[in-house]
């Protein structure tokens, strides 16, 4: 027996921070990185007597996510209290949803080795985030920062439909892309605004019942998701093969050691004593809201990818790069419209020069100094033969950093190719009369000399001669 005799079964719970300006139950800012406890008030500090008031924007964002993931939006859902003690949880309970969540029964299409497949989504519910404990490295004190307390979250729970760590990563990436596209989440795993817990079990390939499930926590990168799940699969298979049993428990992933270790057993599991939150009436979705949000949904990554391949004739590779970022894809379409030339050529500029410069400069697309008309103008100049490809790259770099008009840059740098046939003819005449020996050799059949003559003409024209014109003029004069 070996790992290949076993079928891993994986379900994921993703917590995504919703990009509202204020918290879910009070008016405090959700901004990341403020000094500790700067974004707090009586409500999110859990002072005596405070009551929650729901931020309506949170519900709209969650419905957006729910509909984009094909969920049914429950017209009435219920808030619940999840009770447990921890210093970062100021009220001693988290307001969440339990029995009746806002969204249910959706799905997300992913690409697997065996082709595209839909992973079912069991539910999406709303809840508030907790704060964070900060431990004095000296070991003396623990401090509590409640800036994050009350930040709105969606918890997206998949069915156990994933069969490998690679599929899990594929699902997570697709989910993140959608949430980022919807502008409801920033997809940042490192800052914890997109977090994932994985439920992993293994079963023998002919078995009909799932194995005992282990919950993995503390996985904060796509790479770790893969590693943690793979480690866990191996661990469980080893246990079973050595005749032992997998324990129902929660395990933490240790990224440094690359292993999982037990955090709490089933016996130590919290009894959260969920009950309906008496301070909040049931969440009722007003008629027409879901329809309105649906109408405003943007094109999602998968549909956009297919359209880019079809409409622009792009390779899957190029399309994927462009579609990975909604703003990049939008910018591409704007430039394509202004340019009107071959989209493949434009895509090369995007995947090559533009992305390289953005990366080098560490600039966000939203902070670009130029717009679609400038880039389109640059490409048109290349197409018209006014700029060589290499010169265009110089101009683009300048455009990227200054935002000035490409034509001005090219002129100032003296990069415009001479289109005047008279000037070309004059230069050709001058070169031919200055090099009678070479002309002789050419006419005697030494055709390599042609390249030397072209070079002389280009030098005479200080590099601004249009190579096509120079070639044609030379050939004509040499009597071909």
């Amino acid at each position, binding site marked *: 027996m070996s790992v290949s005799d076993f079928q891993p079964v994986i379900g994921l719970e993703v917590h995504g921070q919703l990009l509202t300006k204020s918290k879910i139950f009070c008016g405090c800012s959700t901004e990341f990185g403020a000094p500790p406890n700067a974004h707090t008030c009586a409500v999110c500090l859990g002072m005596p007597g405070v*009551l929650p008031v729901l931020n309506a924007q949170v519900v709209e964002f969650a419905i957006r996510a729910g509909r984009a993931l094909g969920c049914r939006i429950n017209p009435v859902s219920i808030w619940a209290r999840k009770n447990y003690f921890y210093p970062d949880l100021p009220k001693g309970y988290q307001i969440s949803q339990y029995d009746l969540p806002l969204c249910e029964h959706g799905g997300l299409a992913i690409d697997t080795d065996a082709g595209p497949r839909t992973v079912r989504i069991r539910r999406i519910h709303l809840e508030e985030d907790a704060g964070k404990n900060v431990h004095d490295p000296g070991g003396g004190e623990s401090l509590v920062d409640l800036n994050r307390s009350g930040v709105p979250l969606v918890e997206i729970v998949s069915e156990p439909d994933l069969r490998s760590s690679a599929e899990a990563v594929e699902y997570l990436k697709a989910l993140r892309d959608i949430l980022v596209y919807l502008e409801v989440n920033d997809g940042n795993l490192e800052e914890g605004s997109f977090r994932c817990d994985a439920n992993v079990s293994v079963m023998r390939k002919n078995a009909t019942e799932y194995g005992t499930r282990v919950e993995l926590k503390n996985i904060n990168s796509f790479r770790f998701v893969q590693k943690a799940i793979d480690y866990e699969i191996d661990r469980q298979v080893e246990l079973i093969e050595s005749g032992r049993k997998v324990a129902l428990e929660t395990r933490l992933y240790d990224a440094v050691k690359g292993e999982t270790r037990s955090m709490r057993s089933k016996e130590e599991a919290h009894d959260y004593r969920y009950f309906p939150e008496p301070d909040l009436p049931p969440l009722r979705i007003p008629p027409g809201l879901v329809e309105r949000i649906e109408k405003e949904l943007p094109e999602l990554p998968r549909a956009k990818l297919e359209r880019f391949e079809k409409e622009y004739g792009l390779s899957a590779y190029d399309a994927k790069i462009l579609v990975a970022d909604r703003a990049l894809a939008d910018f591409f379409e704007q430039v394509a419209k202004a340019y009107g030339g071959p989209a493949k050529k434009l895509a090369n500029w995007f995947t090559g020069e533009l992305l390289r410069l953005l990366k080098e400069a560490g600039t966000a697309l939203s902070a670009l100094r130029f717009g679609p008309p400038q880039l389109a103008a640059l490409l048109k100049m290349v197409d018209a033969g006014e700029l060589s490809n290499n010169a265009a790259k110089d101009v683009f770099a300048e455009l990227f950093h200054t935002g000035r008009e490409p034509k001005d840059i090219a002129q100032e740098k003296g990069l415009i190719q001479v289109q005047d046939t008279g000037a070309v003819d004059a230069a050709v005449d001058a070169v031919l009369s200055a090099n009678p020996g070479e002309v002789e050799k050419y006419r005697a059949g030494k055709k390599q000399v042609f390249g030397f003559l072209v070079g002389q003409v280009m030098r005479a024209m200080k590099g601004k001669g249009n190579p096509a014109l120079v070639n044609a003029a030379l050939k004509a004069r040499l009597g071909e």
Partner: protein
Amino acid sequence: MDPTTLSMLELASALEARSLSSVEAVRASLDRVERLDGRVKAFLHVDRPGALAQAEASDRRRASGTPAGPLDGVPVGLKDLFLTEGLPTTAGSRILEGFIAPYDATVVKLLKAAGLPLLGKLNMDEFAMGSSTENSGYFPTRNPWNLDLSPGGSSGGSAAAVAARMAFGALGTDTGGSIRQPAALTGIVGLKPTYGRVSRFGVVAFASSLDQVGPMTRTVADCAALLQILAVPDPRDSTSNPEVAPDYRAELEGGVRGMKLGLPREYFELPGMDPEVRAAVEAATSALQKQGASLVPVSLPHTRYALATYYLIAPAEASSNLARYDGVRYGLRAFGAKNLLQMYGQTRDQGFGLEVKRRIMLGTYALSAGYYDAYYLKAQKVRTLIKRDFEEAFASVDAVLSPTSPTAAFRIGEKVSDPLAMYLNDVFTLPCNLAGLPGMSLPCGFTRAGLPIGLQILGRPWDEARVLRIGRAFEREHDFHRRAPTGVGG
């Protein structure tokens, strides 16, 4: 003239006529507190400078002809459950000893905006859990009619302060009878509004689905006037009714002619009811009948489950509401703990009293995995049945009358060791909270021993105006509310 003998509205008239100043009224109240409260023990904290400053400001408004409202300048007290910015707010608990509220409860803001000077914070059973004020983490409050007796609870400090004329009125809260029962036991008027009528924002929570803020006064008209200030929609409380309250004094004097008043059979069949209480309440209902109301027997068949239902739902919610008192951010923190769990345990052990611990345990148990369906969920279902009982009764009657409490005031210490006997005190008042209805207690007689007896009037949801009107009709023809308490000097 001693201003403290006046009702709130009488004082308001005197202030309006400039025959008395708010500063004089506040001084008279504070002097009386100084003279009597060493024995009554109604106040946990007296804010003399604050009340006087507010009174001076009120007098200036009155002088310039710009009063903030009809009760501008009339001093009142606050149960110590209301957060009051800059003042101690303990909820009667040691766990909040020294806690200074960082903000004003909505009702406190409303009182301040209406110009009412706030005399201080009044004693209560810890976190409003109790019916005698003996569960205060500080000291028991005594009944002004007989200092050996309890004023009831949990708003016992508020009731005693109003009854002893130390405050012209007070705010209480009522989760299972905590306004009405002490009102009955001290001979004053106390009203629990419909759930959602008055904001709970800034009120230390006991049981969120049952808690409601209400006025405690010497007369029904005062009660209406004070309720008017409190009954304001609050966007900070998601359970607050967004509709604007009616004018509670518009039809106050309208009488009861033609009204149908229900007498719930189950309430009058209670074996533990004091015959003197029954006699007084029956006399009161007859008096209303003589004024033109008809008395209709009604049945509230699920009444006998109310106590059990209440003692599952209220502790369950309390166990969650009281989780925040963990020693981390404010209030008491036990020192010397070796780890987090010990810090939690020791803080809560030292900070909470016996009854609070009992209810946290009851509630935690009722919500635990495997017991939730049998206890909490079932209790919620019975709660629906109790609500339905009232809906059916209110299909044929305009209000329901009953005793407020099965007995008059009891001795301090008498029921402390028998929680079930203590819980039975609230048997007539609990169903009203479970159904979310408005309910009022007003004085309707005295026992031979000279102790006040309360009549309870329950109304349809949002029908406080009618409850007040019935109470006023009775009060107009009786003088029970005018008698001064015998346990304290004048």
